[in-house]
């Protein structure tokens, strides 16, 4: 094997040689550079491969033929191999990316670049303190030179700040090193570690100086203005390297020297890391310059890594996996993002909308962002998972909270950015001119994220159970994205059906999972079938829809927490992309994803507590949480409730569902929300009926459910937007479900199941039909519709049946839910919640009537005179569902009886007994079939009677109405719809004052204000940045050694 020392020899030799070739052989230097970097990559890659195949062990490389500590030695171990490899790969790719720039600006740059990459290799490998210092200096001088590449005033300023700051830092480092030397008599890091400097009072200052210098090299908040400026002003190709490689090397160096200080100091490293992670991300929220934003994010990620390094005592042997998972995701994503930024040359993240002109770049951009946040299947996901799980086994809840809060704040700006890129107008932006050498590095980074993600999956406990087959199918769909809709639709439906057939035997014994499988996959088939009504290619829709469904199915299949969470995140990502497809969905998709992430983190923390209690990642661990069980259950419940959009966490839903595309709305409303329900059901089943830790939680959740229905329904009644009305209705319906589950009795659960099934069916129908109508009519506003019953009778019937179900009017199946609820609340004794629930149920009539009246009844508008029925591709699935409703209504026992039997083992409360078609409880009885027969017969008889009485009625037109002896002027002025419940609003409107929306708005404003206020410390002045560094040092000193 080629020794790592040749990395130095090759790099420096080539760099020196370049001057020799000089101008005579100008063309060759570019090739030399690439060759050299390739050789360096090869050397480190070779070592990495050897380590991965376990064919070598950690090797020491001695220089000058003497043993350390007398001479400098390098070390090549697994960790060094990985780091040098990624550094060199980044160097190679970066050089490829900047090939034109380099050849334009002369060979000096190439030399500098080679030395730059080499120096990082040495900082990683060296085991000598002073040598480390020297190569750090080389690194920072080379970097200062590379910053000059931009040749702008800003770059000069940034470089100057960087130089001064690093100058001070390295001066202090030097002081530290020399004093450490004076105490230990050695410069070798391993020997210094052995000397336990940190614990000795006298030498602790030296340790302090060394530590603080290496920490400062990582640009901790707030002493990092100089670093940010470099990110902002440097050429993006350089920015990529700074973020990807310098940070990686810096973190590793810190990792290397931390043992010198000893474990007493680790805590402070974590503290600074936390401050940096949260602070940097917080200020990123106010940032609009892409490179600077990336800078904030980079610093934040490094902060996270510092936390991890500081917590390595808790993390134990998992430290490496976690740190590398996060580091590599950060590395690939940041490099890719900076490179994309270089292609776009935009000064505002809003201009990143130009990415849509190149779908591949957009895809990669999304990949990088999701990798940064820690979505599956990227390595950062698994790393974060392990991090949280391990921390919770140690009871480090505060750290978990800090990490999750920081990650969430990072999501705030990353997703705002993604939203801009996906949705903002890009017609006026210049088109992209991309050369292959710029594209290849980005592709390599993007793809490596996926490959690494899959590669590390089995390293996590239970990770091997994660099912990648659906993801493969999605990848295929991505590849086939150019095909027309009908082919892709058929393929998708085929895929879903095939998976259903594949899945069924696995869940044969589990009715609950079967029900949800039918809802998720049956719903998928139905909503996808409606997609046949669309024309064109519908780029990007199918992979994302399938991603969501894959996530949903994954949730059902999951047997372990990681499997569950993996699928949960996939579903979130897929649904986010689906939601944001709507024309005006950007802000709503944004709030959706933020709530989802927050919820996911709550779930993660909950899982962490469960894992911590049992050291078992199986889902069954949820049943036995001994460590802070109430907190765990609350977190999990809140997490799931973000998906069910319960009161307080619901504000994302109306916009997200209301603005989504016509067939996406049912997917996200009728189907996606059930994921939350499924989660809650799982959770509550594990909690069990008599769990003393959850009594209060369940009680609160009951109230939340009840109030959710009330607020949801009342808000729906005051909506003018048809789809938002339905969205609020969803909130309310899910409130019923939550309430029923919180009751934790047999009957409450039966009711919840009934509601779940019903809501799936009728909300699919409503969103499909109303969505189709909205598209056809070209407006969301109900007051602009009207009279559609004559033009779309089949839609009308579908909606009519749906609203009868929602209203719970006998004989249709909605009544079953109401009846079960009455029984359940009397049995449970939650009378007032029950009263609110039923009050809300009656309010439902307000919006139901508003919906059906405003759209279908009333006055037909002029511009809708030529309307025809909505597409049969939509009505077909809708009528399938209507048949479903009818069957469920007429023969509820076939569905409810098995559910009851399934629930029996879980609850020892009063059950619903069946006698043929008749259901009995202790309190009452109900016979769906008989009611259906009686009502049907009576209805037919009465209708016959009326027809016999009035056969000759004259059909008249819309203005043939009595109008106080006048005639209507225009349909618009005659259609009563806008603010139809004005009186009601006057009386009870205060209940739906947008208090919760205002609350969240205030919260977000506050966060942004704090960020805006905080970031003023970065005043741009060189001296201020110096001050920050000194302040940081002094304060850190006062806290640690000064004992403040």
């Amino acid at each position, binding site marked *: 094997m080629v020794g790592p020392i040749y990395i130095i020899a090759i790099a420096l030799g080539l760099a020196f040689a370049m001057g020799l070739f000089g101008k005579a052989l100008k063309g060759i230097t570019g090739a030399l550079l690439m060759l050299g970097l390739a050789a360096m990559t090869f050397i480190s890659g070779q070592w990495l491969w050897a380590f991965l195949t376990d064919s070598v062990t950690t090797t020491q490389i001695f220089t000058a033929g003497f043993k350390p500590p007398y001479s400098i030695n390098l070390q090549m171990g697994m960790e060094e191999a990985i780091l040098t490899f990624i550094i060199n790969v980044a160097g190679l790719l970066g050089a490829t990316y900047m090939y034109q720039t380099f050849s334009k600006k002369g060979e000096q740059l190439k030399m500098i670049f080679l030395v730059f990459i080499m120096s990082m290799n040495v900082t990683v490998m060296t085991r000598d303190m*002073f040598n480390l210092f*020297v190569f750090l*200096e080389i690194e920072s*001088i080379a970097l*200062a*030179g590379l910053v*000059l590449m931009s040749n702008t*005033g*800003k770059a*000069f*300023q*940034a*470089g*100057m700040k960087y*130089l*001064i700051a690093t*100058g*001070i830092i*390295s*001066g202090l480092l*030097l*002081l530290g*090193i*020399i*004093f450490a*030397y*004076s105490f230990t008599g050695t*410069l070798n890091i391993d020997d210094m570690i052995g000397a336990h400097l940190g614990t000795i009072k006298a030498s602790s200052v030296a340790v302090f100086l060394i530590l603080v210098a290496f920490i400062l090299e990582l640009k901790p908040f707030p002493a990092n203005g100089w670093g*940010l*400026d470099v990110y*902002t*002003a440097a050429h993006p190709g350089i920015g990529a390297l700074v973020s990807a490689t310098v940070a990686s090397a810096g973190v590793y160096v810190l990792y290397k020297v931390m043992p010198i200080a000893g474990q007493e100091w680790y805590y402070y490293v974590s503290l600074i890391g936390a401050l940096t992670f949260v602070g940097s991300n917080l200020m990123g929220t*106010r*940032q609009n310059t892409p490179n600077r934003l990336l800078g904030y994010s980079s610093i934040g990620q490094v902060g996270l890594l510092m936390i991890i390094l500081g917590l390595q005592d808790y993390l134990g042997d998992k430290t490496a996996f976690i740190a590398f998972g996060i580091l590599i995701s950060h590395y690939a994503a940041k490099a890719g993002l900076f490179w994309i930024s270089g292609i776009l040359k935009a000064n505002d993240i809003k201009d990143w909308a130009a990415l849509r002109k190149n779908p591949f770049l957009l895809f990669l951009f999304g990949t990088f962002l999701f990798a940064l946040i820690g979505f599956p299947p990227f390595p950062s996901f698994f790393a974060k998972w392990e991090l949280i799980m391990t921390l919770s086994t140690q009871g480090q809840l505060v750290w978990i909270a800090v990490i999750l809060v920081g990650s969430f704040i990072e999501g705030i700006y990353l997703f705002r950015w993604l939203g801009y890129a996906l949705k903002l107008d890009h017609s006026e932006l210049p088109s992209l001119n991309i050369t292959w050498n710029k594209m290849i590095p980005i592709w390599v980074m993007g793809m490596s994220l996926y490959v690494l993600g899959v590669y590390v999956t089995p390293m996590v406990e239970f990770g091997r159970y994660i099912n990648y087959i659906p993801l493969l199918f999605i990848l295929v769909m991505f590849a086939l994205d150019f095909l027309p809709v009908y082919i892709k639709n058929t393929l998708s439906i085929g895929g879903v059906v095939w998976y259903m057939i594949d899945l069924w035997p696995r869940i044969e014994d589990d009715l609950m999972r079967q029900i949800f499988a039918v809802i998720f996959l049956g719903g998928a088939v139905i909503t996808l079938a409606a997609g046949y009504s669309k024309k064109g290619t519908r780029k990007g829709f199918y992979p994302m829809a399938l991603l969501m469904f894959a996530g949903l199915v994954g949730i059902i299949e999951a047997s372990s927490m990681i499997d569950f969470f993996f699928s949960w995140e996939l579903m979130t990502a897929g649904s986010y992309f689906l939601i944001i497809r709507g024309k005006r969905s950007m802000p709503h998709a944004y709030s959706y994803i933020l709530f989802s992430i927050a919820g996911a983190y709550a779930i993660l923390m909950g899982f962490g507590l469960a894992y911590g209690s049992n050291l078992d990642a199986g889902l069954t661990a949820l049943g036995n949480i001994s460590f802070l069980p109430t907190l765990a259950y609350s977190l999990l419940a809140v997490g799931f409730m973000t998906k069910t959009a319960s009161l307080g966490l619901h504000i994302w839903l109306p916009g997200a569902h209301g603005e989504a595309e016509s067939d996406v709305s049912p997917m996200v409303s009728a189907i996606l929300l059930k994921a939350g329900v499924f989660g809650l059901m799982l959770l509550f089943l594990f909690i069990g009926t008599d769990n003393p830790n959850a009594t209060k939680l369940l009680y609160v959740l009951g109230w939340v459910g009840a109030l959710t229905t009330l607020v949801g329904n009342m808000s729906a009644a005051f909506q003018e937007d048809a789809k938002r009305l339905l969205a609020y209705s969803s909130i309310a319906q899910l409130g019923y479900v939550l309430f029923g589950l919180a009751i934790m009795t047999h009957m409450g659960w039966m009711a919840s199941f009934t509601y779940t099934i019903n809501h799936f069916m009728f909300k699919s129908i409503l969103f499909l039909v109303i969505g189709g109508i909205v598209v056809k009519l070209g407006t969301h506003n109900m007051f602009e519709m009207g009279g559609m019953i004559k033009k779309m009778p089949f839609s009308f019937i579908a909606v009519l049946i749906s609203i009868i179900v929602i209203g719970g009017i006998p004989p249709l199946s909605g009544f079953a839910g109401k009846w079960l609820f009455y029984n359940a609340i009397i049995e449970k004794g939650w009378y007032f919640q029950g009263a609110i629930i039923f009050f809300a149920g009656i309010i439902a009539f307000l919006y139901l009537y508003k919906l059906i009246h405003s759209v279908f009844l009333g006055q037909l508008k002029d511009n809708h005179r030529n309307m025809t029925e909505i597409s049969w591709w939509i009505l077909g699935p809708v009528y399938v569902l209507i048949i479903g409703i009818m069957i469920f209504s007429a023969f509820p026992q076939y569905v409810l009886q098995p559910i009851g039997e399934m629930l029996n083992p879980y609850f020892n409360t009063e059950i619903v007994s069946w006698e043929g078609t008749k259901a009995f409880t202790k309190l009452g009885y109900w016979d769906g079939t008989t009611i259906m027969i009686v009502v049907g017969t009576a209805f037919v008889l009465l209708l016959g009677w009326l027809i016999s009485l009035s056969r000759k009625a004259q059909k008249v037109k819309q203005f043939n109405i009595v109008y106080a002896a006048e005639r209507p002027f225009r349909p618009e002025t005659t259609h009563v719809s806008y603010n139809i419940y004005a009186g009601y609003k006057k009386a009870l409107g205060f209940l739906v004052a947008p208090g919760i929306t205002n609350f969240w708005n205030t919260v977000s404003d506050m966060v942004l204000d704090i960020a805006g206020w905080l*970031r*003023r410390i*970065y*005043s*741009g*002045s*060189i*001296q201020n940045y*110096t*001050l920050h560094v*000194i302040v940081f040092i002094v304060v850190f000193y006062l806290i640690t050694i000064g004992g403040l």
Partner: protein
Amino acid sequence: MEYIIISIGFALVLLGLYGIMYMRNLMRIIIAFTLFNTGINIVMVSIGYIRNASAPILDAIPAAGTTPNIVDPVPQALVLTAIVIGLGVTALMLTYVVKLHQDKKSLDINNFKDLKW
């Protein structure tokens, strides 16, 4: 003696830091920076100092087991490197100052606040 020297070194470090933080002219900041560096170098050298010992240049190979009475050569070697590094950094800073001056025709640091927040 060595205490005085190391104190001077430390004083220079502090003076340098003060200058870096206080001065508004870039050239002066660089001068302060060199002061800072020099101070550190002095400290480094004095760390290796041993009273009554000679320079680490030997006349003959010392006999096995005996230690010649010399000052510690390691800090001296290190300081050599440190000086060169300081030189490089200073040269680079000066280059930057040249570029900055070309850009804004000024050396006042308050004129270089284009990047902030």
